[in-house]
């Protein structure tokens, strides 16, 4: 569904990604784990066209999308829930969700997806008319995921959904991610610092270190890998 080949990204003269390749199969949850500054967010932002790629290719659903403008990429069914939640804090919860459906015209489909999102995140329904800036961190994360779902994507990219959220809510959110993947058959690319959790919910994983992929395997196998255990899973 989504394939990256030899992707190189530089910020000015500083290299952020030194030729990474990865593959996300349709219907699976694939995770990209790694420490701070490994290039996880850069990878996602390059895929969604916010950061330009220097070389390499990104193919989505059989077509190359490298360096297309972001709004075109979303239009092709690749949605992103950005890092640090980034909800529109002055808009209401409802308006945020509708912003996610910005490129859609099918009123019925939008209403249906809205119902689905409120069903998986009842908290959002309760807060429907509140401005997003007044939500808790966890609620904002739910909103960011819901908003990304509103574009009816074929593939959803989640950037650090656990960042800055109460541990109890992190668990809920990851359960929801699995639920969305199972119920909608939605392909998910999950970027996460919390490797333990990410490898638990995903099918396949890549380990990124300073702009290079150093390991890849089935998530269950990565969890058993000595190296990964020592570096990311706390022994």
């Amino acid at each position, binding site marked *: 569904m989504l394939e990256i080949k030899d992707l190189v990204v530089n910020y000015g003269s500083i290299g952020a990604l030194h030729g990474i390749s990865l593959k996300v199969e349709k219907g699976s949850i694939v995770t990209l784990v790694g420490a701070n500054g490994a290039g996880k967010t850069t990878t996602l932002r390059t895929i969604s066209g*916010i950061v330009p790629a220097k070389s390499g290719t990104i193919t989505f659903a059989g077509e190359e999308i490298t360096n297309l403008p*972001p709004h075109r*990429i979303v239009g092709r069914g690749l949605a*992103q829930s950005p890092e640090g939640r980034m909800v529109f804090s002055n*808009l209401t919860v409802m*308006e945020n969700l*509708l912003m996610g459906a910005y490129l859609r015209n099918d009123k019925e489909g939008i209403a249906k997806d809205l119902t689905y999102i409120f069903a998986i995140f009842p908290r959002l329904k309760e807060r429907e*008319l509140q401005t997003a800036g007044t939500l808790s961190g966890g609620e904002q994360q739910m909103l960011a995921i819901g908003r990304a779902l509103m574009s009816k994507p074929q593939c959803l990219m989640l950037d650090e959904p656990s960042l800055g959220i109460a541990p109890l809510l992190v668990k809920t959110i990851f359960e929801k991610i699995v639920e969305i993947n199972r119920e909608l058959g939605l392909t998910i690319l999950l970027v996460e610092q919390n490797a333990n959790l990410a490898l638990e919910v995903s099918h396949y994983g890549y380990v990124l270190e300073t702009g290079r992929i150093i390991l890849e395997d089935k998530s269950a196998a990565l969890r058993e890998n000595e190296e990964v255990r020592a570096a990311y899973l706390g022994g």
Partner: protein
Amino acid sequence: MFERSKILLVATLLTFAGLSHFAGGISPYYFDILIGIGINIILAVGLNLVNGYTGQFSLGHAGFMAVGAYASSWLTLKYGYSMGSGTLNTTTVFVLALLGGGLGAALAGLIVGVPSLRLKGDYLAIVTLGVNEISKGVLQKAEPLGAQRGLGGMEQHTNFFWTFAFAAITIYVVLNLVGSTYGRGFLAVRDDEIAAEAMGINTTKYKVLAFVLAAFFAGIAGGLYAHFKQFIHPEGFNFLRSVDIVVMVILGGMGNTAGVVVAATLLTILPEFLRAVSRYEWLPEWLRHVAENRMILYSLLLIVLMLTRPQGLFGNFTGKRNSKLQ
């Protein structure tokens, strides 16, 4: 909601048309202030679309006002009087010239906006400030437009009705735009540009659109100004004029149209009020001096405001607004 606002607009226009009949009776001094209020409302509400709702920082609004003022004056001077007795009456020519001025300013806005709106924050302010100065500089040298002598000879077509009709239309367009599904894109760009892009919003397009629309309204305001004062001079559209408009937007609360309207009104009246105060002989000498130096008072006002109410007098839009899908 859309229908109601349309009815409201028509009602407002009719009221102004009615009021306009009585406007002849008031003293020219108060009339001058009233027209000034209307023009400032158009300028500030338009700029609010850029600086308030879209979260950019344009500091050269007077430049677009100048384009509109000169373009419309040129049009009426060239066509207004020869056609006055012919097929088109002078009012029609005047309104067409106003729209021409607005379109000219919008075009200028497009030319400036497309390259510069890729810049963010302070850089945009610097570019727009530069454009303001350049347009002034060009006008100072443009011989057919009077250069340093200024341009005069326009008839006074601007009246109570046209001024406030355009003010009402400006408010109507801005409010309806930001209240629409499409217009929420402006707010999204302001709240978080990266998230907006990730939603599939073409942020550059929105920024340019806000900029061009604001320039259009500034052009209309310029045309109204030119056909009221009947004389325009490049210095009348300098940096200080731009700052005046920005202050109205900030004082009113960025992204709060009602607040900006009130602020534009207050800041048009305030200098006149202070001028009056400085002439009251029974007031202590020092107080009259303070009143005389309005710029000092303005600065103090802004500093106090920023310290106590950084969201502007009338606050940000944190209140609940209607959501469309109810």
